[in-house]
């Protein structure tokens, strides 16, 4: 029998509408799954048991009166712990914000709650979203449900592990250089980074403001479409949110891809690419070709410069954004308080972990007098080249298909001593953030040793419908997204 926690949101919505399942039952099922699974996975930073059950009861009550706020009202949702939720701790997995309780809701949280989704918890992440393995959490790493010795990816590794291990129905993550898509690939779940500006960032703790974007992490493409529908739209609280019409994303999922022009960029298939990843992505392209899609070979020669450009821009923005953690208005204050400078120094030295310090210093350096032009300004200009290269590509194709990561999930500890090596795991995801483009990662199969492989679809600006439909067509033809990790949890 299918347990309620195993359902997708659209399956649960059908049962809820027919009153064959209550939100209370669904939420309790998820909470019980969390209780049993967390000792093994550690996907969550905070579990919101009481407020979730109260919200579920309220939804059941409103549905009984025919007044459910939406079709998906009563479905559980896990939030990455960098999204503010009023009255619930929002730590960013940092000692700096260990005791921070936001006095307001992020816009995405407000929208999800208005639609009746039930926040069941806040998920673990790399501190301040800086990392690709969730090992940079100040509160312990998250295990990959497919192999507990391996990382779930990052920085939204808690959210992807929670979805993979059925510890939630829906989840939200954030993506600055791949933080939704790389862990989605590592955990064999569906992850979407929307176009920059599609979703409000109000209430998302800022890492690199020109790159950050919130997006869905789900069990399939259909759920990603419906969650994107809920969170999209312009917001007066975020002047970088874009005032563009929000299409009916679920309605875009026709599965019809005849004539779809799929670009395959050769730079995303370098000589050193893991052979099983290459095989899986090529097979995925072939499958869609057999359905009538047209395959176009592309070249995106700037790809090799993506990581260098990305890490200059994101660290510069981070050093500026994180200047606010100084121990005055909120968050931790350091022990040394003899004068204001000592207080700042002790606050930041005690509150930030090693990767955050590294990025703040790198960002401070590249913005400092004498180096600004050579590093930051140059990176901004190269960023323009990335945009132009993609603009040219999308004159020839509708979507681009490529790997999500250069390798399958790596072992915990494998890259922690070599930051540059860790950074390179974002090579296929970071270019999109620089160009503002949407990217969808779906499960694309498994290596011979059973490790997840992701397939990435890239779309033009506001091309979410195209990549969602392509991903949906792929999921109609495959069952990778229905595979569950061989997880043994205490009963």
């Amino acid at each position: 029998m299918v347990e309620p926690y195993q359902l997708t949101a659209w399956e649960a919505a059908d049962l809820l509408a027919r009153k064959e399942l209550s939100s209370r039952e669904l939420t309790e099922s998820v909470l019980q799954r969390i209780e049993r699974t967390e000792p093994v996975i550690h996907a969550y930073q905070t579990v919101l048991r009481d407020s979730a059950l109260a919200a579920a009861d309220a939804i059941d009550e409103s549905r009984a009166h025919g007044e459910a706020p939406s079709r998906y009202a009563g479905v559980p949702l896990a939030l990455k712990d960098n999204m503010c939720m009023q009255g619930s701790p929002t730590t960013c997995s940092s000692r700096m914000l260990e005791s921070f309780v936001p006095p307001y809701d992020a816009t995405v949280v407000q929208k999800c709650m208005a639609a009746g989704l039930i926040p069941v918890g806040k998920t673990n992440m790399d501190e301040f979203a800086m990392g690709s393995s969730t090992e940079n959490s100040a509160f312990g790493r998250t295990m990959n449900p497919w192999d507990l010795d391996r990382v779930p990816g990052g920085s939204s590794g808690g959210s992807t592990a929670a979805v993979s291990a059925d510890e939630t129905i829906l989840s939200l993550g954030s993506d600055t250089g791949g933080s939704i898509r790389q862990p989605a690939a590592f955990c064999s779940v569906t992850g979407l980074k929307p176009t920059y500006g599609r979703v409000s960032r109000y209430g998302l703790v800022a890492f690199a403001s020109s790159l950050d974007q919130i997006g869905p992490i789900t069990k399939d493409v259909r759920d990603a479409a419906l969650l994107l529908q809920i969170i999209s739209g312009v917001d007066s609280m975020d002047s970088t949110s874009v005032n563009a019409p929000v299409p009916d994303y679920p309605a875009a999922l026709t599965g019809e891809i005849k004539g779809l022009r799929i670009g395959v960029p050769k730079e995303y298939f370098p000589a050193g690419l893991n052979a099983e990843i290459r095989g899986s992505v090529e097979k995925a392209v072939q499958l869609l070709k057999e359905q009538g899609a047209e395959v176009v070979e592309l070249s995106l020669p700037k790809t090799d410069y993506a990581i260098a450009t990305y890490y200059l821009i994101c660290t510069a923005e981070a050093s500026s954004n994180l200047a606010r953690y100084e121990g005055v208005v909120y968050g931790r204050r350091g022990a040394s308080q003899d004068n204001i400078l000592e207080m700042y120094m002790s606050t930041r030295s005690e509150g930030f972990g090693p990767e955050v310090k590294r990025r703040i210093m790198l960002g401070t350096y590249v913005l400092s007098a004498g180096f600004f032009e050579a590093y930051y300004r140059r990176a901004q200009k190269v960023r323009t080249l990335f945009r132009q290269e993609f603009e040219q590509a999308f004159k020839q194709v509708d979507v681009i298909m490529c790997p999500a990561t250069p390798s399958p999930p790596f072992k915990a500890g494998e890259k922690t001593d070599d930051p540059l090596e860790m950074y390179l795991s974002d090579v296929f995801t970071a270019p999109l953030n620089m160009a503002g483009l949407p990217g969808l990662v779906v499960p694309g199969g498994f290596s011979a040793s059973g490790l997840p492989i992701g397939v990435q679809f890239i779309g033009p600006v506001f091309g979410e419908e195209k990549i969602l439909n392509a991903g949906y067509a792929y999921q109609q033809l495959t069952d990778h997204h229905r595979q569950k990790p061989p997880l043994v949890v205490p009963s």
Partner: protein
Amino acid sequence: MSISRDELKHIALLSRLELSDDEAELYTRHIGEILEYVEKLKELDIEGVEPTSHAVPMENVMRDDVVGPGLEIDEALKNAPDREDRFFRVPRVTE
């Protein structure tokens, strides 16, 4: 391009971070390696290229200057590490 230990210590001070000697050594090496890696951007011709600060074109957003609800003082002070009365309390700023 690498970075010297003294340069790193200066950057740490600008970043308001205090480093132990071991940390300073480690970060000098890591940041030096990253700076060497990003040198590859010099291979690209950026002559005449406009910088991008935001990927998606945007316009300035204007609104009428109307008073709306804001945080109550007590709410705003709730997360303060130290407070006194209606104020955030900090160590002495000027001598």
